[in-house]
């Protein structure tokens, strides 16, 4: 296996295996920095969850801020989420962590019934500054209880904000913003993105995360991706460029707020006439349909072909490696989809390797 680095626009690098460069910092460390900086600034920020290591993203915080501000709870997701709401309503700024988003389903009554309505219910009088971080698992047989994505589910609920940063810079900037937000934010972090590295910005002020992130520019086909699918799409873009001289305009739907601000995407489609959505979730009644709605509403006449999408297969995720491989969409699927749209024949993939997480982690998790 070669060290395959997919270059995106200069600023962003998707690192498919670890790159040992000093100036670069990982997604995981970027999250750690974001939380550390905000905790240092504001004593009302605290972290709570059943597992307060979170794959290293909380490293050092307990030592620095004490167990009063980095709180490990009993295995009680529902009550902990209620706690977080009560804390937010009484002046604190909780960051709740879930080592898998699947576990958040035990607390969905609090999230959907209670948290999403708290400010509205008070006639706008009370802040609800909650950040819920949850990891999207994948690989090594995690299977159907440890690998859901669920952003499509939470994206349905008014009163919640949803973010899913893909790049280290976005992870840092968006999480800092989320901690400062006075409304509840759910942050979904793909486990594999933790290893992405990037040169970090010094200043995150003034960045608008309510629009899609621009991963790379191109003129032949517009691709809109979420979470890990941005990495697959980047590889797809490289293949398409190498093999077919097709250039991809790639957008990262990094927040649900972006759905209201797709102007750049529409402009792109007016140029390319073609659009593919790569969603790191089940397709049915999810984010991909929502994006489709907005695009056809705004670009109906510009589309030279129907909007296509790739996403999880419509089954639970099986545990055996070969089942996982077929369950998840990848760069090759995107390439094939573009080839069909563009009416060119299928290229060979021999030179390219998909990211193998097993160079990063093997069992047990």
């Amino acid at each position: 296996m070669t060290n395959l680095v997919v270059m995106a626009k200069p600023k962003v690098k998707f690192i498919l295996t670890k790159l040992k460069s000093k100036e670069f910092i990982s997604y995981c460390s970027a999250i750690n920095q974001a939380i550390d900086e905000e905790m240092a600034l504001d004593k009302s920020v605290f972290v709570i969850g059943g597992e307060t290591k979170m794959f290293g993203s909380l490293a050092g915080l307990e030592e620095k801020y004490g167990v009063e501000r980095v709180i490990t709870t009993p295995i009680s997701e529902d009550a902990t989420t209620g706690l977080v709401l009560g804390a937010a309503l009484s002046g604190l700024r909780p960051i709740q962590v879930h080592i898998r988003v699947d576990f958040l389903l035990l607390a969905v009554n609090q999230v959907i019934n209670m948290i999403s309505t708290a400010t509205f219910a008070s006639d706008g009088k009370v802040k609800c500054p909650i950040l819920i971080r949850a990891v999207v698992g994948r690989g090594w047989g995690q299977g159907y209880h440890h690998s859901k994505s669920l952003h499509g589910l939470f994206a349905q609920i008014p009163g919640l904000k949803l973010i899913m940063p893909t790049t280290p810079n976005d992870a840092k900037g968006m999480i800092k913003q989320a901690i400062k937000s006075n409304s509840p934010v759910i942050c979904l972090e793909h486990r594999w993105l933790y290893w992405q590295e990037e040169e970090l910005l010094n200043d995150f002020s003034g960045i608008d995360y309510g629009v899609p992130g621009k991963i790379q520019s191109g003129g032949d086909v517009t691709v809109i991706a979420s979470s890990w699918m941005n990495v697959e799409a980047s590889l797809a873009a490289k293949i398409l460029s190498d093999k077919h001289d097709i250039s991809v305009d790639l957008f990262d739907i990094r927040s649900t707020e972006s759905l209201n601000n797709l102007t750049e995407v529409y402009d792109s489609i007016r140029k390319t006439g073609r659009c593919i959505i790569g969603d790191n979730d089940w397709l049915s009644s999810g984010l991909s349909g929502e994006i489709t709605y907005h695009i056809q509403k705004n670009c109906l006449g510009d589309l030279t072909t129907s909007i296509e999408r790739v996403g999880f297969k419509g089954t639970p995720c099986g545990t055996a490696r070969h089942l996982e491989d077929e369950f998840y969409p990848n760069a090759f699927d995107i390439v094939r989809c573009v080839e069909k749209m563009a009416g060119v024949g299928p290229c060979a993939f021999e030179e390219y390797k998909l990211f193998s997480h097993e160079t990063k982690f093997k069992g047990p998790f």
Partner: protein
Amino acid sequence: MKNIEEVIGKHSDSVRGRLVESVAMITKCEDLIVQHYNENQMKTPMHMSVGDESCVAGVVECFREDSYFFGYYRTHSLYLAVARDPYKFFAELLGKKTGSNGGIAGSMHMSSVADGLLNTSALVASTIPLSLGAALSNRLLKEKSYSVVFFGDGAIEEGVFHETLNMAAFFKLPILFVCLDNGLAVDLKGEARQGFKSIKNLVEGYKCEYVFSDNPTVNEAYGAAVQAKRLLSECGTPVFLHMGYYRYLQHIGIGDDFSETNASTFEKRNYRSLELHKKYLKKHPLEVAVSEMVAAGWEKSDVEKSIDRIADITLKAYSKALGDQFSSYGEAEGKVYFD
């Protein structure tokens, strides 16, 4: 002989006076609802507090100054005891902009953030864990000292109650769990739902103090709350205050199970007896509170005069709220997110 005007007045510092005042205000507001609900101006599902006035007024009086409160859908007594504002109360029931929650919340979700009543919920048991967060806030920010949450006996059947009690005990958080036990969940008696030996037995499995107060007068309820508060500050554990009371009306709405005149919404399932009902009809919390005042040396006519004054205030509040504007959806829309 004390001057009741003085005790019930806004700046009175007499606990007894404030207690009877709270009970009277709740009673008079509930009376008005019963009188006017069928006029269909208050388009909100009413879970009436008739019966729990003493319990709630007593506890709130004791914890008012230094606590955050959470409640459930039976909000009326809690809202009125905490916020003491019949005008905002009725405006809310009427869906008016001037309501406690701008008409957005209605009967089941009233709150009064400024007074520390942070949230109530129409979902059984769902505010119980919120008490943990406020207690944590007290520990870190030190703005208040206690966290008080009210819920019904049925809420104990929800798992989150146990998760919360475990966490409260484990983290040694001074939370007062007030279980308002009317022995009913809708129309199911405890024996039709409970697999535990007793609430006391259950709670005592945890590192938590237990205080029981059965059908207290408002002064007894206050006394139980004082005892609970002492335990909270001395033991470093949560306290479970178990209060029995009689629910006069049906689970929801203004009907009761016996009289023919009141509109009855819920099917009458004969889940309780007329005898018991008659017994309690003679012991309505407000009447009991008045008797207590008289026994403590107040002049009955003075007490009654004050209650009349409260009735008057309450009625005026209702009338004023009736004339208010409805909130607009356009405004409400802007309140989904705080920023």
